[in-house]
């Protein structure tokens, strides 16, 4: 009976208390990797400072080495020269890992609809929580961390198998319609497959 229920529901319900225990431990000790590029980075530093203390929520240390962190907070706009660096650092982080995209520029390009700013990192990287704002207040960042803790506690597994299910790109398509038009209009520009491949 229990196995029939489990076959119908599949992997959607996590029935083990081990999962719950592991998720509880992970959620309450998220160590952030601050990928702070611009102004949101200063709000991130303010959130870690004494008035809005982020270490109350488990983020005791901000390690700058990706090998030691489990939460990447992309705070600030990502220029096209920086995106390969961001992807490489994401690949260097060990599982389980989550990503928060902080600020309007990381979520969607923000005020900078220009030739050099990536219009949202979710086009190229998986993101778990988005924080709007320019820059978002420290209280918003704290709420986002609390939301992420809820997300982890309600769906986390001990061997991180929920991440293997997310095998499609979750953000918008790489190129927008008007961008494709501009690319076609310019004669002679052939868009090859990118030479930089962070996965292999």
């Amino acid at each position, binding site marked *: 009976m229990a196995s029939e229920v489990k076959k119908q529901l599949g992997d959607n319900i996590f029935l083990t208390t081990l999962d719950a225990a592991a998720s509880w431990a992970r959620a309450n000790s998220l160590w952030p990797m601050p*990928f*702070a*590029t*611009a*102004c949101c*980075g*200063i*709000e991130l*530093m*303010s959130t870690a*400072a*004494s*008035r809005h203390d982020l270490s109350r929520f488990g983020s005791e240390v901000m390690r*700058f*080495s990706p090998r030691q962190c489990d939460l990447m907070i992309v705070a*600030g*706009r990502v*220029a096209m*020269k*920086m995106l*390969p*660096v961001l992807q*490489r*650092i994401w690949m260097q982080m060990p599982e389980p890992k989550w990503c928060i995209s902080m600020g309007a520029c990381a979520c969607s390009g923000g*005020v*900078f609809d*220009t*030739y*050099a*700013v990536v219009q949202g990192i979710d086009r190229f990287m998986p993101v778990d929580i988005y924080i709007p704002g*320019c*820059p978002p*207040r420290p209280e918003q960042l704290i709420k986002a961390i609390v939301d992420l803790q809820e997300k982890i506690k309600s769906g986390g597994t001990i061997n991180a198998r929920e991440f293997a299910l997310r095998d499609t790109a979750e953000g918008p398509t790489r190129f927008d319609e008007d961008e494709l038009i501009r690319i076609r209009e310019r004669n002679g520009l052939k868009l090859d497959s990118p030479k*930089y491949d962070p996965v292999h």
Partner: protein
Amino acid sequence: MPLELLDAPGLQENQKEGLWTLNFGPQHPATHTTLRLVLQLDGETVVDAEPDIGFLHSGFEKLGESLDFNQYVTIVDRMNYISPLANEIAWHHSVEALMGIELTPRCKYIRTIFAELMRIHDHLLCTGTCVLDLGGATAFMYAFNEREYIYEICERASGQRFHTSYTRVGGLLYDVTDDWIAMVRKFCKNFPKAYRDFAGLVMKNRIFIERTKGVGVLSKEDAIAGGATGPVARASGVTRDLRIDEPYLAYDDLDFDICCARGGDCYSRFQVRMMEMEQSLKIIEQAIENLPSGPIYNEAYGKTGVPDKTEVYRSIEGLIHHFENIMPNRQMNVPVESFYASTESPNGELGYYIVSDGNFKAYRARTRPPSLLHFALFKRMIRNCMLSDVVAVLGSINIIAAELDR
């Protein structure tokens, strides 16, 4: 991103043996944003450093060509994001100088108070993070706590902690209220104690002095020929401060000193910044006591400036005034000329070169970035320093990547 061995020009062939390359990459533990240094090391000594920038290049100058003078202030805020109002004041100073607009005394005094508050804000962050990078986390916490009061003051005036977009052509967004004045007075009363706490932790601290004295020396000739301005130049002996040499806003009426030092090393730059904070406090105290009353916008120019929103929604004159400002063919007249005007921002001489073609939008808005010229001098400062001094020097020249890359 491939790691290339960037050849340092001028290095002899036979000296290249025994040197190894270290990439101080765009993501690094020092809290100084996205810049990359390729260091050539001989053991622990840095023989050469080749900077690689552009990791935050966002096309600010291209945006300046499509947004009008009142809209671009939101973008200009995001350049030197450590002291946002200082950029806005510099931008509108250039626009008003181009258009030949005079400000009212109240507007000048309020902008002066904000410029000095932003100077304290910037110097607190610069010194705080410099000390944090050298290992002193307590001083960083003290500095950031003080900055929270300044955020509250900005929020009371304009509604936003950061990126206030508070100035407009010929005036300000909102006038300040009495409780704002009370907050600034309270800040003036509480800041000296916090300053003493912070300075007491750091200035005579033997570890700090040993890590910064004699490190990253910039001579006066190099500073001048390299285009350095502001605290970096003043710490090398250049006695030039735009607030006194080319006074703007209300600096003519106020009494303060220029802070200079002779050493040219990291400790001198730190000392200049600490002294400037004291002078800024003096300026704020004088300005807030003598704050003139009156309008924010100069009535001599007629329908310029953003009208009060209650008037816009309740009277026909207010609505007309609003339209006169917003409709593209009805805004203020701008001469078809180009003009360069600069202010003494906390980082140095921040100037805007605006070329106009008669519209209320810049044809070309060029920012003169102090951080770019300072970072170009980094190579000269780091000769024969050790690897751990790289962080101290980077911190002391206050490079802000958004101003560097624009």
